[in-house]
């Protein structure tokens, strides 16, 4: 037998070997800015992780769902009796069995007056509206037996016409997904006078782009364990939002909130897909209540591809009016957004998160935005990494490239002529947002240098000249995003159902160790490490002396969870604020013990001293004060015997990370194959707490954005069956599909929070999709190509080229364009 692992020993060894790396700037503190290796890793690299599917309880039962094979049908009969006779089956239910109990899955973002929020039963009762909708369930003693018994359930359907195309869905006489019709809402927004901007505009670019439907594909499939506990229930779920989920489940199921505990154990990625209140969570709780036993459900990947909410799926018409020198006058956007069959937690809000971003980093006088949400008989869409902002950035960055091509200008130069220059911050945009800080010049200069832009342009010209069948394309993407989902007041004005604050508790324990309780709910982001760094600096204690608790409503009762690049910008700042409050209390205690006035105490390096006494002067360490507070032998009058504090942070403004991403691709014009040759990203995410984690977020985001550009698409057939149900059909990038990314940063601190941080979770995804597609189109411009629909697969590229007549007349096409290419 091999020696068994001592997890504590391993963690200690890891900690010892991690004593590397100098602090970034000693004046700023010892920890913040340092490339700390993550404390989370110890359990993850040794297989001691607590995934939801790992949970076993005595007497636990397993749930399996029968799902609709029809996109749209009347459900006329469901008979579970034969399933009940199967071995190991304890119970089986249809939707009718939950009538009056199951409620409706919530939509927390009623975006407009005209919004239609249809009833959305967790289990279908008499109608199904997408393939995969649950129609019955089996509860059995193990997962294999539960799956077997599904086959014994009889369900009858009367087919109705599937509704798959948004334009057709809005046409008169289209089959109705819901009684109220197929239009979910309309939403309009404008700034300035778009009519004037477009009237007599010297140049108008008018394009339509399709944001294909995506499947988020977190590597951990969803899993739910619901267990009766005491008077109430505990729900374990692979979720990003334990706090929001608890409130929503209480409202949906009627289980009183105080008798419901929600735990997000270790969660294997989310990317928005676990920002949801799901049918399986609600039904899991109802089953645990009905059967009085713990139940578990773990989805298979193919079940997940069908029923985890999808992302994107918009048709974007964007028009851009400009002067002949390339200056943009205004932008108009008309958006169709596919809601799928129902409105889930924030479904209708997703396109709105993009509504303020179609002007990008550019100055213009007018902006006009219209969005129509459309019901179809497909899986509902909802937040997916970036949520609305990648779509907006794609459209404006593609359109600006088209403007450059139209005017025969270098795409970087067109951007330069339009972007907000560094002296102009803070800048209030045509969409009404105030960008607090940024330096687009610095990020762009650095990116151009890292890529070797001029050299690549020269090579491109050469390849065009040589009529090389493998053409080189260079794609530019400059982006900003409204980030750190926060200002509660602003969210309220957009009809969002909750606030955007975040909460933290910081406790000094009697031995001087520190517990940080956070309302954020990490699922790969490394909050345990970053929050420890923030607290260690603020309190002057060693990093190792801090622990971070999260993801359990019994431990962390208040929070708004993790999505929208908000955790550091709101939650990390709340940790800092709580530390400051603890320090204020500690200072009072120190003054009392040192017999000095509060104002005469200063704090440095973890010690409170009487001002002016220098390092040798009498002082009390944080640890001594923690013990003194605990002992409570000698406290100031009215001083509670504890050194801890709660804080919430609710910023006044969003934060605005930005950056410049450049991508060079080689496109084989004979096969349509696209190969990324180099990728450079220079991001400005404000001040950086942990450069390792920031780099990792950027890398992962870029990979996901490239996935949309080149590989990924959820495909439904004409009957509304999802064809991409497996990882063999829905292709997320593998290591062999991607290059090494070159990343760098500029740093202009955010002014909306005391840490100066801006958020980084979504930046890479927002920037990379247009960078890649711009590169592909750039490679093919000599062939008269102005667009390649996503994903730019070899087949699509080949078809676009074939349609452009490239194969027949390649030489001519290249010759025609010699003067166009390589504009510097």
């Amino acid at each position, binding site marked *: *037998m*091999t*020696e068994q*692992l*001592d997890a504590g020993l*391993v963690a200690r*060894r*890891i900690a010892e070997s991690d004593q590397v*790396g100098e602090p970034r700037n000693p004046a700023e503190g010892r920890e913040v*800015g340092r*490339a700390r*290796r993550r404390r989370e890793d*110890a359990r993850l*690299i*040794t*297989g*001691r*992780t607590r*995934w939801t599917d*790992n949970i076993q309880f005595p007497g636990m039962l397993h749930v399996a769902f029968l799902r609709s094979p029809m996109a749209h049908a009347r459900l006329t009969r469901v008979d579970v009796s034969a399933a009940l006779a199967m071995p190991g089956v304890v119970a089986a239910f249809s939707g009718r069995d939950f009538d009056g109990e199951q409620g409706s899955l919530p939509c927390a973002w009623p975006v407009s007056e005209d919004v239609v929020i249809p009833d959305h039963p967790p289990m279908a009762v008499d109608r199904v509206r997408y393939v995969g909708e649950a129609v019955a369930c089996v509860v059995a003693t*193990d997962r294999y037996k539960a799956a077997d018994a599904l086959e014994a359930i009889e369900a009858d359907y009367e087919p109705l016409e599937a509704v798959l195309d948004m334009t057709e869905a809005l046409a008169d006489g289209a089959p109705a997904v819901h009684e109220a019709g197929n239009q979910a809402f309309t939403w309009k927004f404008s700034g300035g006078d778009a009519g004037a901007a477009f009237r007599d505009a010297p140049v108008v670019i008018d394009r339509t782009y399709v944001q294909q439907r995506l499947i988020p594909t977190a*590597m*951990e*499939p969803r899993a739910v364990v619901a267990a009766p506990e005491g008077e109430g229930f505990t729900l374990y779920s692979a979720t990003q939002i334990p706090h929001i989920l608890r409130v929503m489940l209480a409202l949906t199921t009627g289980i009183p909130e105080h008798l419901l505990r929600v735990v997000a154990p*270790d969660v*294997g*990625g989310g990317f928005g897909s676990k920002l949801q209140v799901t049918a399986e969570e609600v039904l899991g709780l109802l089953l645990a209540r009905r059967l009085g036993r713990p139940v578990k459900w*773990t989805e298979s*990947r*193919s079940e997940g591809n069908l029923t985890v909410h999808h992302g994107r799926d918009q048709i974007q018409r964007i028009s851009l009016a400009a002067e002949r020198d390339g200056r943009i006058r205004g932008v108009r956007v008309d958006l169709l957004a596919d809601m799928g069959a129902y409105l889930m937690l924030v479904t209708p809000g997703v396109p709105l998160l993009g509504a303020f971003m179609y002007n990008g980093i550019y100055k213009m006088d007018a902006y006009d935005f219209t969005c129509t949400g459309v019901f179809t008989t497909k899986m509902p869409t909802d937040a997916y990494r970036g949520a609305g902002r990648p779509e907006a950035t794609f459209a404006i960055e593609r359109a600006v490239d088209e403007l450059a091509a139209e005017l025969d200008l270098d795409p970087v130069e067109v951007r330069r002529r339009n972007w907000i220059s560094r002296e102009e911050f803070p800048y209030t945009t045509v969409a009404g947002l105030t960008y607090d800080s940024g*330096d687009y010049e*610095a990020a762009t200069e*650095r990116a151009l*240098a*890292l*890529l070797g832009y001029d050299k690549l342009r020269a090579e491109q010209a050469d390849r065009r000249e040589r009529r090389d069948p493998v053409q080189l394309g260079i794609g530019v993407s400059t982006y900003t995003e409204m980030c750190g989902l926060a200002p509660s007041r602003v969210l309220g004005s957009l009809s969002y159902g909750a606030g955007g604050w975040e909460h933290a508790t910081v406790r000094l324990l009697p031995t001087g160790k520190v517990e940080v309780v956070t309302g954020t709910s990490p699922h*790969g982001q490394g909050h345990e490490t970053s929050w420890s760094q923030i607290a260690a600096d603020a309190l002057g204690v060693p990093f190792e002396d801090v622990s971070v608790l999260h993801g359990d409503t019994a431990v962390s009762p208040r929070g708004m969870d993790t999505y929208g690049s908000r955790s550091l910008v709101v939650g990390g700042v709340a940790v800092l604020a709580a530390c400051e409050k603890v320090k204020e209390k500690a200072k009072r205690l120190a003054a009392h013990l040192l017999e000095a006035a509060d104002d005469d105490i200063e704090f440095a390096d973890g010690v409170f001293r009487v001002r002016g006494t220098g390092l040798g002067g009498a002082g009390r360490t944080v640890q001594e004060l923690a013990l003194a507070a605990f002992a409570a032998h000698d406290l100031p009058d009215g001083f509670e015997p504890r050194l801890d504090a709660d804080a919430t942070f609710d910023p006044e403004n969003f934060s605005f990370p930005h950056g410049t991403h450049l991508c060079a691709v080689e496109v084989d014009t004979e096969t349509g194959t696209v190969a990324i040759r*180099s990728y450079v990203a220079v991001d400005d995410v404000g001040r950086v707490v942990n*450069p390792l984690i920031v780099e*990792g*977020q950027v*890398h*992962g*985001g870029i*990979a*996901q954005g490239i996935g949309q550009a080149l590989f990924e698409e959820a495909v439904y057939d004409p009957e509304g069956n999802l064809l991409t149900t*497996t*990882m063999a059909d829905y292709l997320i990038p*593998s*290591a*062999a599909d*991607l290059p*090494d*990314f*070159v*990343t*760098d940063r*500029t*740093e202009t601190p955010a002014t909306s929070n005391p840490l100066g941080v801006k958020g980084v979770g979504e930046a*890479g995804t927002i920037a990379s999709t247009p960078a890649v597609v711009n590169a592909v189109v750039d490679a093919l411009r000599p062939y008269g190509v102005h667009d390649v629909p996503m994903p730019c697969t070899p087949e699509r590229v080949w078809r676009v080229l074939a349609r452009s007549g490239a194969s027949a007349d390649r030489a001519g096409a290249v010759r025609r364009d010699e003067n166009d290419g390589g504009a510097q």
Partner: protein
Amino acid sequence: MPRVTVTVDGVAYEEEVEPRLLLVHFLRDRLGRTGTPVGCDTGNCGSCTVMLDGRSAKSCSVLAVQADGSDVVTVEGLASGGELHPMQRAFHEEHALQCGYCTPGMIMAAIDLLRDDPDPSEEAVRQGLKGNLCRCTGYCTIVRAVRRGARAMSGEPPGETAGETAGETAGETAGETAGEPVGEGVAAP
């Protein structure tokens, strides 16, 4: 029901199993060895990778009965005597994991890759790991980790920091990309 005898991470087990039971479910549900997760149902993701008699295998694509008489090593059995396996350490040191769901499989596949190519190039690592999917990292740090692990396993000092590794692989125009602060000249005024 068939009876299987397997050694898992050095512990011998003898169990009766249904013929259809997948090895990964046998490990997770029957033996409580939950360090090896499941990410798909088509053998595409590699999350479930273990060592079966010394070579990597996707344990979702093997029946428990097929493993009869075998020696199985999972990520839980890699460390010994309180010391991490060099590949585990390398994944930590290069920040080659975020959510960590792909990590057990990725580490096992990486160790197997090195048996055939003890000093793989970046390209060899990328090709060698294409059966293991990660949605979080974008793979750059995984590639660095595997190469770092390879050096450690061949007895070379790990030598470079993460930043230097990046500089080396990103070509002449690359700046430092990790592990170190960006140079003064880069920061915005």
